[in-house]
Structure formats: C-alpha cells, structure tokens
C-alpha cells in the first residue's frame, strides 16, 4: 500500500497508457464469427409437434416467460406469507413498488373509484413486464449449443402484441361497460365540431384506437430488442476485432450499457402500465 502511495499523481496516466499500449501489442484471441441476428432466432429447446399452424415447441423465449411467471408468483407468495408490521428489506422494496403501481400509476392517471377497479390489471401488467424485462438480462444456458445467452421474453413481438391486445380489449370493455355499446361509440363523436370535421374526427378516432395497439406493442418490443442487440454487439465485438485493447474498452462500455438496460427495463414497464391506464381511463371518462 505504501509503495502505491509513493507513486506521484502524474505517473498514473503514463502507467495506464503503457498498459493500453501493451494490450495493443499483444496478439488477439481466437477469431470468431458473430452475427447479432442469430441471437434472436428461436431454436426449439424441446421439440413438440405442430398443431395446425401453431408450433408448440418450447424455445428460449417460452422458458424466459416461464421464469418471469415463476419469479412473480414466488415473490408475491413469499412476501404475502411473511407480512410484518415492521417490514424487512424485501418487504420494503416490494411495498415501494406496489405503492408506485397503485398511487404513481393507477391513482395518478385514473379518477377515484375506477383506479380501484382497474388496478389489478394495470399493476399485474406492470409487475409482469418489469420482471420479464429484468429476467431478460440474466444469461441462461438455452443458446443454440446450450451456451449462455440472454433473451427478453418481451423482446418478441408475439408477447408484446398479446399484452397490448389485453389493454385494447379491456379498454373497449371498460367503455362499453360504462356507457353501453351505443353510448360508447357515440362518445367518439365530438358534438361541437362542424359537420364534415365531425365525421373526419370519428374516423380518425377509430384509426387511432388501432394505432395505440401498434405503438404499445412495438414500443416495448423494439426497446427490448434494441437493448439486447446493442448488448450482444458490445459483448461480442472483442471476438471480431481480435485485440485486447478493444476488448478492455468495450467491456467497460458493455457494463455501463448493461446498467443502462436495467434502467430501460424499469422505464418501459412503467410506460406500458401508465399508457394502459391512460387508455382505459380515456374510455371510461367523459370528455368535458
């Protein structure tokens, strides 16, 4: 330790540069081919027969989905069983998340009353997507040759489209339940608009209902896909460049990006839940 303290401050950058220079000179490791798009091809881990057009094979996407479901259920059961008046660490963390979902998302967007009705769906979607996104960052051995690889279940358009369809169906259900089928369709017409514009707005509203479906699903899907593609490229670029210098720099970058991806995972779950809440409450509430 004393020896380290004796080195003057100006020497540290020189040492660092020298180390980088040595790394630059060292011959690189094994050359390997890497194609990011291969990471997103779903090979069946367990082969199952097809039923009609539906392939029932279990891919790594399905496994990640199961992992997420198990984690959500386990956490809920564990915390529910051991509820204490003086909470432990886990309980405090999950209570914080619950409060975010209950008061930060459902409570802040919806009116009093309807937030109680719709919180189970919105909170469920929030927790499920959050855990799905976070589980996607854990490498599991379900790659092509059983190597470690990560894959977010929400980085698949089928999963996110299903989630968005839930929101879409619940939105229509909430509107029809509240106003009746005729009243719900009538609420799309703005009575104060001039006649030609009125029909135009009506058509635009129908189109926008479907575009919500697209944007809700594609946003989550593209975010997770882009994040995983960037992470994959950063982790594997050292193999392609065959240089220890680039490997050191890129690994530092990939750790930073990994932390950023954790942030993105939380933000995307939050945005999905809050937009679901906005859509459902827009169907329920009357525009004044």
């Amino acid at each position, binding site marked *: 330790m004393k020896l380290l303290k004796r080195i003057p401050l100006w020497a540290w950058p020189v040492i660092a540069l020298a180390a980088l220079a040595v790394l630059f000179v060292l011959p690189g490791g094994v050359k390997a081919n890497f194609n990011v798009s291969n990471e997103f091809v779903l090979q069946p881990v367990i082969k199952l027969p097809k039923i009609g057009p539906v392939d029932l094979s279990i891919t790594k996407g399905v496994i990640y989905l199961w992992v997420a479901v198990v984690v959500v259920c386990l956490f809920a059961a564990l915390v529910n069983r051991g509820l204490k008046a003086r909470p432990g660490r886990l309980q405090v963390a999950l209570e914080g998340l619950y409060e975010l979902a209950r008061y930060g998302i459902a409570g802040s*967007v919806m009116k009093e009353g309807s937030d109680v009705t719709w919180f189970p769906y919105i909170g469920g979607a929030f927790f499920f997507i959050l855990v799905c996104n976070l589980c996607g960052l854990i490498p599991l051995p379900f790659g092509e040759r059983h190597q470690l690889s990560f894959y977010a279940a929400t980085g698949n358009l089928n999963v996110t489209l299903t989630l968005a369809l839930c929101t879409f169906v619940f939105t229509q259900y909430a509107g029809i339940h509240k106003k009746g089928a005729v009243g719900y369709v009538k609420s799309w017409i703005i009575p104060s608009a001039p006649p030609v514009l009125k029909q135009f707005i009506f058509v635009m509203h129908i189109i926008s209902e479907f575009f919500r479906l697209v944007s809700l699903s594609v*946003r989550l899907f*593209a975010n997770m896909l882009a994040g995983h593609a960037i992470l994959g490229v950063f982790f594997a670029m050292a193999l392609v460049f065959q240089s220890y210098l680039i490997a050191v720099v890129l690994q530092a970058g990939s750790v930073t990006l990994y932390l950023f991806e954790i942030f993105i995972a939380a933000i995307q779950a939050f*945005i999905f839940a809050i*937009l679901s809440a906005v859509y459902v409450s827009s169907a329920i509430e009357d525009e004044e």
Partner: protein
Amino acid sequence: MDAHAAKLLGAGLAIGLGVFGPGIGLGSMVGSALESIARQPELRGEIRTNMFIGIGIIEALALYAFVVSLILLFVVK
C-alpha cells in the same frame, strides 16, 4: 449500386433520419418538464408522470424507424 448495398444504405438512413425528429422532440419535452419542476417542485410527481406519458408517445416514433430498418436489413430479400 447493387441491391444489397441499397438495402444497407436504406436501413442506415431509416434509423438515422428517423431518430432525428424524436430526438429533438424528447429534448424539448424533457427540458420544459425539468423547467416546470424547477419552478414548481411541489408538482414534481404529476409532472413526471405526464412527462413519461409524453416520452412514451414520442419514443414510439423513433422505434417505428428502428423496426423499419430491421425489416430492411433482415426481412427484405
């Protein structure tokens, strides 16, 4: 220019130009949200919620460009 080069160029241009507009939009959106939080810190929670709604909607535009460029790269033969 052969078809493959055109495809790659198109994919790059799609994501590059497609991120341009949403980037400006996000900047002005977050900027004004922070400004209003600085002005009225007691409304922080509400402003943040609305900011995230806006971010989600603006961000979707950039992601459409991303999906288009992915389609150009991997789906278009």
